[in-house]
């Protein structure tokens, strides 16, 4: 746990006093203190290309009255600096007064341990794993032309001080291990990427030589792509595999259910609470409470304990994801979804682990039911236009389906769909829900935060596949 009050002339009493005095006449707000330590070690092109360590320390001071948010941050934690920020907030909100809401829910549950993953594994042993990955893949097959492997680890300590002196703290570990391999055969080059991670120590993920499985998976994806043919173009049936393809749910539905877009009525979903937005059998939750998952949080970045929020239940839209600000303006409560990338950024309602729950059909049944379509197993990134509802994502491993059978692999194609209607096109929900391997980062308004996704296999009756073959 970081002590933010032994770094300069700023004492906790000073901070409490400045915070209370600044926020007294506001509706909400807090002082957010953060110290993070992070490392990244990269092996590329047969060499340790970089080893970087960084430490970051700073505060963000927020005051909210009515609909106006004033924010000021600095990486100098001192009495002067905090006072400057306070003046800055007061000048923005000078004519807008509010009544401070002291209420904030409490919980004793923790979803990860207070560890510093960077210190738990020596640099030497990290370098050793990266070199083993490189040797393993290059010896595996002559077609391997490039190997990139990396470790990224972080420990972030935060403290939230609210008006009246209430303080909330959290220590968040996060790691990621990633392997990318490029193969070349008959003049064709293709890459395969795979990674794992979450809020535990490196060795929790690497035990039993698990790095080999990561290598095998990256190699397998690249090999499949070496054989790929041009993807078809046009509307057709799409079977999505379980796990990571749930970024479709994240893009198509998740962003549109974040409180801010709905308060502003710029989301295609803003007037659909209680309405049927998905086929029967489709249930989607956003859960911050799964142990050690990348998207889990003990408390969010406003201090609210996270929860499992039901977004869509059996096809019916139930809830939006809320931070305190949007919840107050929409007359509801925070769902513990207030997040920020770091102290430099304002809080926004964000996803945590977004999951579609299992149904009772099998992947085989789905494939067999398709005359002409594609089977998408893995994706790169996705993106959504909240307002029009259109979303895309890019396949990194996909196959054509002909007459109920999986055929040749197809080249990376973009799939495009319409968020509010896509879940009505879901005609089968599999019994094989799987969590993603712990690699997702969601971007919104220039802020990246770690997230998770999960889903079973699903069959979508109609989606546009953006290939080149007419």
């Amino acid at each position, binding site marked *: 746990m970081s002590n933010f009050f032994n770094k300069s002339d700023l004492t906790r009493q000073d901070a409490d006093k400045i915070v209370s005095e600044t926020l007294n006449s506001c509706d909400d707000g807090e002082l957010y203190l953060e110290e993070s330590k992070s490392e990244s070690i990269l092996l590329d092109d047969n060499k340790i290309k970089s080893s970087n360590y960084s430490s*970051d320390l700073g505060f963000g001071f927020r005051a909210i009255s009515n609909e*106006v948010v004033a*924010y000021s941050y600095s990486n100098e934690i001192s009495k002067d600096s905090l006072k400057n920020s306070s003046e*800055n907030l007061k000048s923005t909100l000078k004519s807008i007064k509010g009544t401070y809401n002291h209420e904030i829910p409490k919980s004793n549950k923790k979803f990860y341990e207070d560890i510093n993953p960077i210190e738990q594994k020596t640099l030497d042993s990290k370098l050793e794993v990266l070199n083993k990955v490189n040797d393993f893949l290059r010896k595996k097959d002559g077609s391997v032309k490039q190997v990139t492997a990396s470790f990224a680890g972080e420990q972030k300590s935060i403290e939230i001080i609210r008006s009246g002196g209430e303080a909330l703290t959290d220590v968040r570990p996060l790691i990621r291990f990633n392997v990318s391999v490029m193969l070349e055969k008959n003049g064709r080059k293709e890459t395969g990427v795979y990674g794992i991670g979450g809020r535990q120590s490196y060795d929790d993920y690497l035990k039993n030589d698990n790095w080999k499985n990561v290598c095998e998976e990256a190699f397998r994806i690249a090999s499949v792509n070496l054989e790929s043919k041009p993807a078809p173009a046009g509307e057709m049936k799409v079977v999505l595999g379980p796990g990571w393809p749930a970024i479709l749910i994240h893009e198509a539905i998740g962003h549109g259910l974040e409180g801010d877009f709905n308060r502003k009525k710029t989301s295609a979903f803003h007037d659909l609470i209680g309405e049927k937005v998905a086929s029967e059998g489709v249930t989607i939750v956003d859960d911050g409470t799964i142990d050690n998952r990348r998207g889990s949080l003990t408390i969010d970045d406003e201090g609210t304990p996270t929860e499992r929020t039901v977004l869509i239940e059996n096809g019916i839209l139930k809830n939006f994801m809320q931070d305190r600000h949007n919840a107050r303006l929409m007359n509801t409560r925070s769902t513990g979804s207030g997040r920020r990338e770091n102290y430099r950024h304002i809080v926004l309602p964000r996803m945590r682990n977004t999951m579609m729950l299992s149904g009772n059909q099998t992947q085989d049944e789905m494939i067999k039911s398709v005359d002409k379509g594609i089977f998408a197993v893995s994706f790169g990134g996705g993106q959504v236009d909240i307002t029009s509802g259109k979303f895309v994502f890019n396949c990194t491993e996909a196959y054509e389906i002909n007459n109920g059978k999986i055929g040749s692999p197809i080249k990376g194609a973009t799939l495009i769909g319409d968020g509010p209607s896509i879940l009505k096109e879901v005609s089968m929900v599999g019994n094989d829900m799987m969590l993603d391997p712990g690699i997702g980062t969601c971007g919104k308004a220039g802020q990246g935060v770690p997230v998770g996704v999960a889903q079973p296999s699903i069959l979508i009756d109609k989606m546009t596949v953006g290939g080149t073959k007419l």
Partner: protein
Amino acid sequence: MVKDQEFLKSKASYCIDLAKKMGATDASVTVGHSISETVNFRNKSLEASDRSDGLALSIETYLGKKRSSISSSNLLDKNIKTLIEKCFETTKITPEDEFNSLPDKNLLAKQISSLNLYDKTRFENDKKIKYLKDLEESASSDNQIINTESSFTENKSNFILANSDGFCDGYKTSSFVASCVTVAKDENSMERDYEFSSKRHLSDIKQATDLGNKAAKQTIKKLSPKKIGSEKISIIFDKRISKGMLSAFASAISASAIARGTSFLKDKIDEQVFSNSINVIDKPDIIKGMGSQNFDSEGVNSNTLQLIEDGILKNYLVDTYNGKKLNLKSNGRSGGTTNLYFEKGNISYQDLMKKNSRSLYITETIGHGSNIVTGDYSVGATGFLVEDGEFKYPVNEITIAGNFKDMFKNIILANDLEFEYSVNSPTMMIEGMTVAGK
């Protein structure tokens, strides 16, 4: 006030001296300070204000051919000392890499000329508020506009780059950015579009009313879109999209992608990669240019580079490390391109629009569909169907796909190049791409 050169220089020299004292054979350091103030408006009222004040430090230490780096935002001498110790300890156990080194001394920038990248004008928040009020007033004048969000950001930065070969220089830059996002609604659809203006100097920022009007007009035009069928069709890329082709091209010719063998343009120097009417230039010394620089992120002097001459690839973007790997001298592009642009073509915008009886005009793409290894390109798109040079109706929920290798050879550029951003392109037409729709 943004910290002055003297303060940053003293921190930089402290770091270099300390690293040398600990036994580092070489070291380089960047110290920067940036102050940024943003005001956000929504539906004609103040929504948020945001002030940021950030110091940043990054240090690389070398022990012969071993190298590692650290970065931090905490510039207290005590913290810097701890970090440099940690950095140097890491350096000692990091394996050697024969290509690690500071840039060649004779390539370092000798004298820096003023490119007029800093405007000291202070645009107080009250003035930002006035600007945004005017902007949103004009943006919301049509009743189909149901939401407006706009912001004005003022940024002032200063930095010093120093290394143990005696390089120590830096300069102030400023930027002013006004932007507006509007949402329009009719009985069939809800659509969003935007407009922004980003400049080094306040006086060059677009008029608030022009910006608001343009955003609103563009948004309303998108209402009630249709989906079209899958077909091969000529595609016209609006300027805001055509410049993205240059960004994809730039990542494919970075020395790092070339050295790693992960680019579809590897080993293509002196070969035809674009149609022979195409010239691509990267010019670092444009006065007030958004991408202008006196030297790159390693201190290496950067000159104007002709990347494509009559369609032929002439240069990669080379930094010190990857240059040594490829046996090339750095051309001052560590950190990428500066002001990158296509030279204008010789056909007017109107003639380009009329070139085919039917074409698709793209105003926005979504998704990360550029594969630099294979050249494959596939993105979601919105735009308009054009018939006989006229916009017929808006189109959405389609994808466009092709391969850069073919697309680059089929580019036709209009003569409407303007220098608005750090990457600039005229309106572009590419024939023979695939649209996937219904």
